[in-house]
């Protein structure tokens, strides 16, 4: 099966410092891939390269067969490459409903209409209500985002991403900062993502990775050092070296 999303030999250096080296990976439809790596491994740079925030020095990114390496972030999103943020980026003065309606309007090409009422688009409102219901956010749909729990804000991030109807979803630490009592709700939401959607999750929390991912890649010092099923990752000597090495290093600095 041809992959819906493919990164080939992606490299990036900042002033001689190689932060991404020859990264290649491919996601077929329905993939659940987790990308893990110690702090400073280059995960953020990788996300920025893939989403088009920064340009690679070499290598290519393909989405649904199309080379999107030279496209800007907005064009990539419009083609179906959607991300969530590690730290939620939401509008505290707007409601979850308004966030999702705005997203739906954009997908339908109506987001910048002047001669319409934002709350008057019943199609968009209905769709938003459905998406919010899927994630269990109906109760708080019309509260200001600044007044809802952080776990709910994380769910809203996922709701916004889903309302974009992505082909490929990049989840950047979807459970970061969420109190452990709320993580089951996030996991449940992740478990109910559309089956055909290709998902790439960047995550620290190994428990979440083991439960969610079918395949894991490990990034260390800008390069992929492991690829395989979650069960094997902890046994891999290179991975242990990368993690323990970096922890030992961090320990000596502290």
């Amino acid at each position, binding site marked *: 099966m041809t992959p819906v999303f493919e990164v080939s030999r992606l490299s990036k250096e900042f002033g001689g410092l190689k932060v991404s080296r020859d990264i290649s990976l491919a996601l077929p439809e329905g993939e659940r891939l987790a990308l893990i790596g110690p702090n400073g491994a280059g995960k953020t740079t990788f996300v920025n390269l893939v*989403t088009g925030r920064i340009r690679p020095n070499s290598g290519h990114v393909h989405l649904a067969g199309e080379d999107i390496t030279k496209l800007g*972030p*907005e*064009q990539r*999103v*419009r083609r179906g490459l*959607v*991300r969530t*943020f590690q730290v939620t*980026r*939401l*509008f*505290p*003065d*707007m*409601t979850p409903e*308004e966030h999702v309606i*705005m*997203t739906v*309007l*954009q997908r339908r090409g*109506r*987001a*910048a*209409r*002047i*001669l*319409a*009422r*934002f*709350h008057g*688009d019943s199609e968009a409102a209905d769709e938003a209500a459905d998406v919010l*219901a899927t994630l269990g956010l*109906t*109760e708080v*749909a*019309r*509260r*200001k985002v600044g*007044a809802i729990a952080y776990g709910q804000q994380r769910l809203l991030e996922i709701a*916004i991403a889903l309302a*974009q109807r992505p082909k490929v979803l990049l989840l950047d630490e979807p459970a970061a900062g969420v109190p452990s009592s709320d993580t089951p709700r996030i996991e449940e939401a992740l478990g109910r993502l559309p089956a055909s959607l290709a998902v790439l999750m960047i995550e620290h929390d190994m428990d979440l990775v083991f439960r969610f991912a079918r395949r894991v890649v490990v990034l260390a010092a800008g390069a992929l050092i492991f690829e395989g099923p979650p069960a094997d990752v902890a046994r891999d000597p290179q991975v242990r070296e990368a993690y323990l090495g970096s922890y030992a290093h961090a320990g000596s600095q502290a």
Partner: protein
Amino acid sequence: MAEASIRNAATRPAPLLRDLLALALVALGGLAGYLLFPDNLAFLTRLISVALLVLSLDLVVGYCGIASLGQASLYGAGAYAAGIACLNGVTEPFLLVLIGAAAGAVTGLLMGAVMLRAHGLPQLVLSIAIVQLLHEAANKASWLTGGSDGLSGMIPAPLFGVFEFDLWGRSAYLFGLGLLLVVFAILRLIVRSPFGMLCRGLKEDPLRISALGIYAFPVLLKMFVISGAVAGTGGALAAIATQVVGLDSVSFELSANALVMLVLGGIGHLYGALIGTVIFMALEHVVAAANPFHWMTLVGAVLIAIVLFAPRGLSGTLDQFAGLLTRQGGRTGR
């Protein structure tokens, strides 16, 4: 779930009702001015034209988060366009306002295209540079603009062919009040359109909007054009009412004063722009008559007091009070 939606429906204010209420308040205030200060209608008309300028600034500053100290570029463009048109035989007042609005919109398009290339402080400096350039251009092109003497001798045709723009300024004032009401109503609708929500989003977090696949530039440029049309309407009104257009209409000073009025009234509310203009200009009017040299000192003191005690401006503080009274502080209110 049904219970939840009923509860939410009750807490969301009916927007149409609020709009009508807001319009009625502005109309009442305007008519009160007409009845209480019949000898000051020329001043009140100027106040309305400046209020349109401050409203236009609120669109850019309050709804898009773009600081500008050059908003009078758009106001001046409208004033000069209307003035020049009037001197060249176009005397129908509504047509003159349309010409002023169009000139403001075109200037807004150009100004936006330049300013949106930069962000933050450089953007602010660009806005100052633009208004200074236009000021100098208006000064130099005296064959068209009258240079430092300005334009004078415009005689607009009577309103609806009946009401003359005479010395008492009744027609001009009511014409201005009508314009303000129409513009205010349109802007209330615009800020609640999908486009208006998008602008609010861009102000708060451009990266989030970009992650939805939305380009900021065309959205913000559109707002610059709308803002230009509003400011140009104000300029045209001033040209029609005072029948002179001077270099002060396209000045840094007027731009800066407009920003002060907006901060005074509170940004991002529309009605804050009106409150700020009324208070600033009334203060100027009253205090400048009593002490022409120190009125700015008093305005400065008032401004400092407001920044210290009501940092969200007078309208923001009014909102807080309203929130306390109706106990919906944490709910959606706009």
